[in-house]
């Protein structure tokens, strides 16, 4: 079934996001991993909304996806601001070298 196709694609994208999230040192690459994970979940929501819609409101899945996109926007803005602030302090953004806790 085509629903399975979307679910498999979403699972694979989710896995790639997790691998990216876990294996990279660069803070921005980690942020990209989070974006991949969020997108995978959004695909799931929309696919379920299309193929197994809830009674009476077939667009709930898409509404969820819209909220996910907006949340991702807020998250990316704050995370990038933190990364840039950290870059000003340390002159690099490799997360494994942030060993000092006090600024």
């Amino acid at each position, binding site marked *: 079934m085509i629903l399975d196709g979307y679910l498999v694609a979403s699972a694979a994208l989710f896995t790639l996001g997790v691998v990216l999230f*876990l*294996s990279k040192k660069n803070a921005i690459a980690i942020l990209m991993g989070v974006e991949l994970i969020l997108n995978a979940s959004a695909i799931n929501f*929309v696919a379920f909304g299309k193929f197994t819609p809830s009674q009476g409101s077939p667009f709930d899945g898409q509404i969820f996806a819209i909220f996910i996109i*907006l949340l991702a926007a807020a998250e*990316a803005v704050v995370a990038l601001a933190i990364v840039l602030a950290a870059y000003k302090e340390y002159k690099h953004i490799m997360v494994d070298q942030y060993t000092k806790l006090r600024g």
Partner: protein
Amino acid sequence: MIGIPEIFFYIFCALIFGSSLLVVFSYNLLRSAFALFFVLFGIAGFYVLLGGDFLAVIQIMVYAGGINILLIFGTMMTGSISQPETSNPSFQGILTLIGGGGLLLILLIILNHTTWPSQSLIDHGPTTKQIGQLLLRNYILPFEVISFLLVAAMVGAIVLINKGERS
């Protein structure tokens, strides 16, 4: 017989996974950032196939045109320019690959063993109007909360960036 949606599904799959593999395994962070753009574009293609035309456009506008550009800018401003070839090193590569493979295997097994409810395919036509009405009626509270969150995030980002400059 394979229909047109299936053909496009596989095209978008190729686009998404070709570029997301580049995102994950490239050692050049800028290339990763540019490849992410194609991943997001392919996902917008998925949304079109799933009957979410408005959602697809929002995905391109906010994700590909906003967040991804922001990531590219962030990449360029954080010193990845000086040594692009090694700007994105990975550590524990084998370990995470094994872990990721295991995770994918588990997910696929779960998918294989689950039976989803009966599927009735209805073409709902244009979605913009219904989504607008849902956002301003049923989901008005989340909508307001998320707009508040966006403003808070914006103010927070400005404060975070300006903090270093003042001291």
